[in-house]
């Protein structure tokens, strides 16, 4: 019998019990839709947090002194870059580099009369394009200028929670490069709202020159932050700028902790994916098994007419394939609508939660379209559907014609 005819029979068989076919198809569709939404959501959150982190904190590439430890936020001269401007000029000359600016990180305490907040003081070159993302989110006051000796910027959330406003003084205390306490009362020039809650609550920006004099680090810098035109060029540029005294770290290394955590979490989600697929498989197997029982006599007739076991098996596999394909089509549509909704509306995670974690997220998490992942999920769903139909198909093929004719 021609293969084409088997397809026709399979298709007609599905139509004989339309309700059952539609329900099975719905199960496939809902399962796939759920998986698409889940994976789109995870991809969205991961990507958003990573891009936020690169944009606000790490840049694509950083040059640091070999002995610098990010954890210690060291201010000792031996751990800092001695010639940041020279490095910046060299980096900026490369065609892949969009912007390069030295930065100085200082652990500090901001205090008001009753409260004290541990935070990070960041000495920046305000005119550099590296800080354009922050400049574009200013919500009050003015952005910094390089030779401002008395001004700072902070997140609006931090200022609000401390009851501070533009024009008021912020009392800052640091331990300088010599291990001595330094205090300064600086004027709040402006407030930003980057949308990344942890950043808005824990970063205070001031001009690099002022930060250097505050901490007695002269013209040293903690790092040179480099933004690239293409994220993928990071390794190549890193290799070009590396020297024995200066290490170049790419965004991958700089966000290693986050990326690793996401990877571990992914293995957990893969288990979830598998369970959903399994349930879909069970339902498909059930539907086809029912179809086999219902048509035992028919199978007997077909077998008596000379249809081979192999062909009967093929016919059932075709039915599964049609169910699977239709279900996948519908599932992709439902899933895409869901992802679209999650991408635009998002799920709120609670501001407090976003602030206390070190992940660079706003208060709302959004999903994202990841066509490759979705295609893989669809393919897997199809494979699972076919696998689930093997038992019913084999069961049908194995029936004895005579017994089957008697409906046994």
């Amino acid at each position: 019998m021609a293969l084409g005819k088997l397809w026709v029979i399979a298709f007609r068989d599905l139509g004989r019990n339309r309700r059952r076919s539609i329900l099975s198809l719905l199960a496939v569709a809902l399962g796939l839709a759920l998986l698409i939404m889940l994976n789109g959501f995870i991809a969205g959150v991961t990507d958003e947090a990573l891009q936020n982190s690169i944009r606000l904190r790490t840049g694509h590439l950083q040059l640091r002194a070999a002995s610098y430890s990010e954890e210690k936020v060291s201010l000792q001269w031996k751990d800092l870059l001695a010639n940041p401007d020279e490095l910046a000029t060299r980096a900026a000359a490369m065609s892949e580099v969009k912007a390069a600016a030295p930065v100085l990180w200082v652990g500090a305490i901001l205090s008001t009369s009753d409260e004290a907040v541990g935070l990070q003081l960041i000495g920046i070159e305000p005119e550099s394009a590296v800080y354009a993302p922050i400049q574009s989110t200013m919500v009050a006051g003015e952005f910094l200028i390089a030779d401002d000796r008395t001004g700072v910027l902070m997140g609006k959330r931090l200022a609000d929670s401390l009851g501070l406003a533009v024009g008021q003084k912020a009392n800052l205390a640091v331990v300088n490069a010599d291990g001595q306490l330094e205090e300064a009362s600086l004027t709040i020039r402006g407030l930003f709202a980057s949308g990344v809650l942890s950043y808005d609550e824990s970063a205070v920006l001031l001009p690099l020159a002022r930060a250097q004099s505050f901490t007695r680090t002269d013209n040293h810098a903690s790092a040179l932050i480099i933004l690239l035109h293409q994220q993928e060029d990071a390794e190549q540029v890193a290799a070009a700028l590396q020297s024995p005294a200066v290490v170049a770290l790419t965004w991958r290394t700089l966000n290693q902790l986050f990326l690793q955590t996401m990877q571990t979490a992914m293995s957990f989600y893969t288990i979830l994916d598998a369970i959903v697929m399994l349930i879909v498989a069970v339902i498909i197997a059930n539907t086809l098994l029912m179809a086999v029982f219902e048509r035992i006599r028919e199978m007997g007739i077909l077998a008596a007419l000379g249809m081979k076991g192999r062909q009967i098996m093929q016919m059932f596999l075709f039915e599964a394939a049609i169910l699977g394909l239709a279900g996948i089509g519908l599932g992709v549509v439902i899933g895409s609508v869901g992802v679209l909704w999650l991408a635009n509306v998002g799920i709120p995670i609670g501001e407090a939660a976003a602030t206390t974690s070190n992940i660079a997220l706003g208060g709302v998490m959004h999903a994202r379209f990841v066509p490759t992942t979705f295609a893989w999920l669809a393919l897997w769903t199809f494979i699972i559907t076919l696998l689930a139909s093997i038992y019913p198909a084999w069961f049908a093929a194995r029936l004895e014609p005579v017994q089957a004719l008697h409906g046994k």
Partner: protein
Amino acid sequence: MAKYLKMAWRNLWRNWRRTSIALVAMVLGLILLLFFDGMIKGSDQAIYGNAVRLYGGNIQVHAAGFRAKANRLPLYPLTDAGTIVQTVRAQPQVVAAAQRINTGGLISSREGAFPVSITAIEPAIEAPYSIQAANVTAGRFLLEGEGDAILIGKGLADLLQVSAGDRVTLLGHSKHETMRQRTMTIVGIYDLKMPELEKRMVFITLLEAQTLYNLYNQATEVAVSLQNVNQEGATIAALQAALPDYEVDSWATLRPEIRDTLQTKLAFTSFFGIFVILIASIGILNLQLMAVFERTREMGVLAALGMKGRQVIGLFLLEGTLIGVLGAVIGGLLGGLLMGLLSQIGIDFSFSAGLGEITALMGDRLYPTVTIGDIISRGLIVILIAALASLYPAWQAARKEPADALHHV
């Protein structure tokens, strides 16, 4: 009724393959739900348990206005800490009450400066209950009233590259905006195997803090230890009534963001789990619908013998519910067993410690827990969904005309 039950039960097993497959879907769904519940509850318990152990005190009493700014550790002195301690000790559940001062500061050595929260305690009272005191690995715990002495965690000691006996500089925030710098000797180092949290907490004596931070004879907190956990609610209510001018809190009310985080997760995973059960219920719907078609003649016979439509509906609903019950029982047993096993072994969560305070508080291993109540309530959801899924097939079955049904091939 018993007769219906018997019929429904028999009908279920007329095609055991189909029923088993439908069961598998329900069981998987339920296990998944229980797994989510266990994870959420386990991390909830770990976080609050660790918070109580690490930060000390099941309950804290603060001056009015503290709660709103709790994460900033404002220096709002209690007007009469001594009286509060007396009042608190009068409560039956209370085993200890101690005065404290909490403030923010910077600790520094040659290696660098790190923001920390400074907890000033009364060692004489707190030592027997303090987890830090029980885990001092080098040197000793603080002594009552000693000055220039500091206890730090191993995580911080590694960062500062110091050991017991070394000197560090502690910068603390005192009342009225000024910072006080003081060189102190590390008398001891505690090790709780939670380096991320150890980095943030140092301990000095209350007396030292009172002189350093302009709080003579004052405290900002009274930390209360109870005999047992889970008694916070009643004691808080009693204390709040006795101390109307102060704020009485447990970790749950003082750090609501922890609960918020977990609740968001719970909502998310519950949604996922219910979705899975819904998919599984399509399996039941399918199964029942099939059974209706298969047994059309039988229905005709039953109807001709005088069985009412209502009764046919009842029979089919009963069959669906039975699958649900079976699924709930098997899933509940398997899920409970799995969770029981996991609650012993734990799941490695050390990878998330660096992501923030909340995940660090979960500890290295997460021990999921589910209660019998969780299993029952989730099981009931499964049964309900199974019953609902068989509603449509049951109605289909009842609506058949006896004569037509009898002629059905």
